Structures are given as C-alpha cells and as structure tokens.
C-alpha cells in the first residue's frame, strides 16, 4: 500500500514528505545472477596491476622485475594524499613492468606490474588482525584502512580512508550503508549481503566507531527483500538493532547514487559543491564495509572482490570472487564464453559502465560487473540519433533537476558557456536521460564531451593567466634591466662628465691659481663641485 501511494506521489512530483529524490526511471533489471551463490575465480596465468586503481594520484611501483611477491604484499606505494597502495593478489614472480591498457574510455594505458603466479598463493602476514577494534583509536584504524588499499567499491573508487575522518567541525550523525544495486544485470552487492552479512555489519560498526556516529541505516531496495531480511538478522545477532536500522526503499534508478540515496533516506540534499559530511552523513558501499572488516579483523589487504559476470551473450553467468589483476577475458571464459571478439564487454553496469574496446584488460578495484553483451543488443541501445522532439522525458527523469535536452543542444553546438549556465557540471552522468530519450540522443555522451571541453578551456585559461603573469614579470624585468642599464650609463656618463669637469676645473683652477698666484694669495677654497654647477 505504501508503495502504491509512494508511486503516485512520485508520479505527481509531490515528494517532499516521502523523501524520494527527484526524477529517476524504472529499468528492466535482467538480474540473471540473482541469488546465485558466489564462486571463486580460478588462478589465471598472469596477473596485471595498473599503478592506479582509484581516484587520485597513481602509485609508484615498489618491486623490480624478478622479485617474488606474496598475496597481500604492497607492490605499489601511494603518492600524495588522495591515493591508496596496491597489493599483489597472489604469490608469484614479477615478470615485467610496462605500460598497459586500463579499463578507461580513452583506451590509454598506465604502467602496469605483471605477476606470474607460482600457484602457492602464500600470504604476506605483515598486517596483524585487530579484532578488538573498539579498543583502538580511530587514527590507528584509519591508517589500517589506508594501507589495506581500500577504495570505494561502489564504482567511484575514491580512497575510503579519507572519508573516515572524525571531523571537529562536522560531526557525522548517520552512516548510510549503501546496499542498493540499482544498475541492471549486477547482483554482486546483493549476493555479498546474502553471504557475508555479519562481516558487512562488523565493517559498518568499525566505520561508526571510527567517525563516532550514533546511528546507521542499511539501505536496501524492495527488489532484494531477501537481503533485507538477512541483514536485519545479522544486525539482531550482533545486538546492534538499537543503532543500526535496515530500511527498504522502493526500487528506482539511480537510487544507489550517493546524493540520491541520502535524499531518499534523510530528505536532505547535499549542498552544491559540498560533501555529505557537511550535512552529517557518511555513506559507504556494502563491499567496502566488508573490505574494512577484512582489513581490520583479519588483517587482509584488499586483493579481490565480488564481481557479477553476466550478460546476454554469456552461457553461464556467475557471481565470482575475482582477484585484482585477473584478465577480463579469462574471467568471461570461466563462464562459458568462447571468444571475447564477438561480444561487447561492458565494464561495470550498463547504465554507467563503459564498453571495453581492447579486451586485454585486468579486473581492478572498480570492476563491479563484467557483462558480455551481444553486439546487436548494444547496437540496439545506440540507435542512430534522431532530432530532439523536446518531449521533456529527460528532464522528468533527471535526478539532478537539469534540462538534458537543452544542455545537449548547447554542448552539440559547442556553446559551452550556455551549457554551464544550464549547470552542466551538476550532471552525475547516471544515464537516466539517455535511457528514456525517444530520439535516442546520446545525451550523456554530449555532456561528457562538454565537460571535457570546458575542463580544457579552464585549463587553458589558467595557463593563459600564468603566461600573462610570466610575460608581464618579464616585461617588468626587462624594463628594470633597461632602466638599470640606463641608470648605470647615466651614472657613468655623469662620472665621466664630472671627471671631465673636474679636470677642466682643475685646469682652469691651475691657470687661475697661476694667474692669482701671480697677483694674490692662493685661494684655499676647494673648487666647487661640477654637479652643483650643472
């Protein structure tokens, strides 16, 4: 009953009481792997570790070719603040370190460490398990989360430790555990909740302890009710039901987006240009919570994750724990795919993931899903663009409250100032607009194009400003040099003149003296300076 009411309210955009976010779409779910028990992906022949698997600065390789590494051993040292180290996911020998393609739409590469497994899977035990986390200080735990290489597993891969800060200015009241898997096809978070509920809740408890939060909400959509029950049981088992609440939300895309979820649960919006912490909220993904549990209680660095391997071209889709660095094609072959060439492989979910063009790419921290789609299926969703009929469906679907059709028009005509005026940068690229567009306009693509161009323009602007300052300071320097030179020349000239004048005066004086000497006594007054005369 509540759902129906909610739907009606939502349809009428009368949402303030029901705390739903604006816009959103109902997607076909295609969850082929729902409630399929997870499996362990076998060991591939080679593992590849790009030096950057998170948002922020890249790592610096710590190992040399020929070194033996252990599972969980740090092989990349983090550089700068926004960075986490990377670890080997099994024991083996480093065979080479060279540029290799990473899962990124540009198709560009990064330095990558290649490791050949020796099959022993020996574990590096330098991290001591800390099961009594409650007795530890948040600072210690935070350092543990950092060196375990944990980055947000929901897709954005932002280094997690940065968020887990007890800020004096902004106290975090509520921790949101994001168990919403709004992308179609993907079921990894759902499955993780079914299988590892206790670990996840422990991870959540660690996070709450670290940031000093008094309450937490586990958010789950109503298409995964079984997970809600399992999580509720785990909360009750651990006697945390006083502080941790499980909330079931009606399914709608993109509810898993951090800002949308916060709005759906609390009714509060994250102010533009600020972070959830500013409204006292911290959100974390279930996979991340589990990784935090593993890092703290078991002393394990992050070396694998649960990946949904699915797609309509795959004979036997699975949820698999895949070690980081495993080649994508190898994973798909484990699910019965013959060849990676005849399919389109989507890295991530279909709404926000990208199509991998070269397929020789490793699974990284961001890989929540690998979808092998028939080429025809993908092409059908990328139908040839037709003229915009301004129906406004995109505007209704936009969770950020933008007007995608006008934005895309301005991006297309390269009128980026107008696009910015229509708030291009508030787009979260969820793809809801493109999904509903009857004219098949690749709206998100236009926005990405526009954002890239605007970023370029801004960079150029900064560069131009720097150049101007350099140029101006050079002009100033040259002028100063010129002036100094002139000053010098003038002084030299004056000296010369002075000397000449002095000489002349001396000569004159000499004659005078001679004359005077002839007539009167010698004058004792010194000759007046030439300067005073001139």
């Amino acid at each position: 009953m509540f759902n129906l009411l909610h739907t009606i309210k939502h349809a009428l955009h009368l949402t303030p009481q029901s705390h739903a976010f604006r816009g959103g779409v109902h997607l076909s779910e295609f969850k082929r792997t729902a409630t399929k028990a997870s499996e362990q992906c076998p060991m591939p022949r080679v593992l590849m570790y790009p030096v950057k698997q998170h948002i922020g600065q890249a790592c610096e390789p710590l190992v040399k070719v020929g070194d033996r590494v252990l599972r969980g051993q740090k092989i990349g040292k983090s550089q700068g603040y926004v960075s986490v180290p990377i670890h080997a996911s099994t024991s083996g020998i480093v065979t080479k370190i060279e540029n290799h393609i990473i899962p990124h739409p540009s198709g560009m590469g990064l330095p990558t460490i290649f490791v050949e497994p020796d099959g022993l899977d020996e574990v590096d035990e330098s991290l001591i398990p800390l099961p009594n986390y409650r007795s530890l200080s948040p600072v210690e735990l935070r350092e543990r989360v950092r060196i375990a290489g944990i980055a947000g597993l929901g897709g954005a891969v932002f280094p997690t430790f940065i968020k887990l800060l007890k800020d004096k200015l902004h106290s975090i009241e509520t921790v949101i555990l994001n168990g919403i898997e709004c992308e179609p096809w993907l079921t990894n978070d759902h499955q993780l909740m079914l299988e590892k509920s206790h670990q996840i809740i422990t991870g959540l408890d660690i996070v709450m302890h670290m940031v000093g939060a008094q309450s937490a909400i586990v958010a789950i959509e109503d298409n995964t009710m079984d997970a809600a029950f399992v999580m509720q049981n785990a909360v009750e088992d651990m006697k945390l039901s006083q502080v941790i609440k499980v909330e079931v939300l009606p399914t709608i895309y993109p509810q898993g987006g951090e800002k949308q979820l916060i709005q759906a649960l609390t009714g509060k919006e994250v102010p533009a240009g600020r972070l959830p912490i500013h409204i006292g909220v911290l959100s974390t993904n279930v996979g991340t919570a589990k990784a935090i549990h593993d890092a703290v209680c078991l002393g394990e660095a992050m070396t694998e994750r649960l990946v949904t391997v699915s797609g309509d071209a795959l004979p036997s889709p699975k949820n698999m724990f895949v070690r980081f660095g495993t080649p994508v094609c190898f994973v798909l072959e484990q699910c019965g795919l013959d060849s990676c060439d005849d399919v389109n492989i989507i890295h991530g979910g279909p709404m926000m993931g990208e199509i991998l063009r070269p397929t020789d790419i490793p699974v990284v921290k961001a890989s929540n899903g690998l979808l092998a789609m028939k080429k025809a299926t993908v092409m059908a969703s990328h139908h040839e663009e037709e003229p915009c009929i301004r129906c406004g469906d995109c505007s209704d679907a936009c969770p950020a409250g933008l007007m995608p059709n006008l934005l895309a028009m301005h991006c297309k005509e390269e009128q980026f100032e107008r696009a910015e005026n229509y708030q291009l940068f508030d787009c979260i690229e969820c793809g809801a607009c493109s999904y509903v567009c009857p004219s098949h306009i690749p709206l998100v693509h236009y926005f990405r194009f526009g954002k890239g161009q605007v970023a370029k323009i801004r960079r150029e602007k900064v560069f131009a400003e720097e150049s101007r300052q350099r140029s101006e300071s050079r002009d100033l320097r040259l002028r100063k040099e010129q002036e100094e030179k002139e000053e010098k020349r003038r002084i030299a000239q004056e000296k010369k003149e002075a000397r000449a004048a002095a000489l002349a005066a001396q000569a004159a004086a000499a004659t005078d003296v001679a004359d005077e000497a002839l007539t009167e006594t010698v004058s004792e007054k010194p000759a007046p300076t030439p300067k005073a005369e001139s």
Partner: protein
Amino acid sequence: MHILLSLSVFSGFALLVGIGLAFASRYFHVEGDPLADKIDALLPQTQCGQCGYPGCRPYANAVAALEVDVNHCVPGGERTMLQIADMMGVEPKAIEAEETAPVVAFIREDECIGCTLCIKACPVDCIIGAPKQYHTIITDHCTGCTLCLEPCPVDCIDMLEVPETLEKWAWPVPGTERAKVGVERKHQHEGIDV
C-alpha cells in the same frame, strides 16, 4: 514675421539641446577602454606575435580600438575569435592559418652551445640556462610560440606535440551523423565558410 519667429524659436531650442548634450558629454566622459581588458582576458597569452602585434595586450588594444580584425589570433583559434567577435558585436571571420595541434619547444641539449639567445627571446621566461651551459625548457610553462626557433644559431630546438595524458583526455563528440551535422550547422550559422 511668423516665419522669423518660428525660425528663431526652433534655433533657440536646438541651441538649448546642443548645450545640454555638450554638458552631458563632459559629465559622462569615459576614460580608457574597459573593453581591451575584457578582450585581453580572452586571448591565450602565448605572446607569440603571430597577430602582428608584440604580444597579446597590444593586440587586445588594437581590436578594442577597431584598428584590426578579430581573426588574427592563431593560437586562440576559432573559439577565441568567436568570443571576441561576440563581445565586439562584429561579424566573425575565419582565421586564415590552419589550426594545429598544441606544441611545446624542446632543446636537444647535446647540440646546444649555450649562447643564451633563446633565453632572451622567450616571452614567458621559461628557458633556463647560463652562458656556455646547456639550456633547457620548462615544458609546463612553454606556450609553444616558436619565438625561440629563430634566434638559435645551431637549430637545436624542436617543436614537439604535447603528449596526451590520461588526466587531460576528454570525450570526443559523439560519432553520430547528427552530431556532425550539429557542428557543421554551427559553422554555417556563424557565417564561417568552412
């Protein structure tokens, strides 16, 4: 008689209006040209001199004074030209020179004789070195103006294309027919013959 009266009334009235305007023109007199600042802010500040003026600021002054067309800034490219034309309220004009990929200067150090001539030529002071020492270019600050090529006596300076990096990578325009049409249409609309 009436004719004379009306003539004198009209003349007197005209005189009054004239005096009023003369006072207004003094009172509302505008000093300087704020427009030149705005144009200067749009220019890429490469100081390359390809416009025929010694640097960006002089060109901005000239454009603001309507002495020169808006299409002489080659490094700024079409976008800058359009922005200036828009600000000036004049018709856009195509830039004659081809748009090229951004370049930076690079000194082959083993050939450099340390003459310091390029250092003097660089408009943004981004070449470092001392007499009889190898010179080198701070790539991050080089505007690619090519002004250092000319004075080099041993031709040891190359202009290299700026390598694309992951951070600077930007999405290209969608590959659909309509996207291409959109760009063409934009050109047509702006009156540029492509």
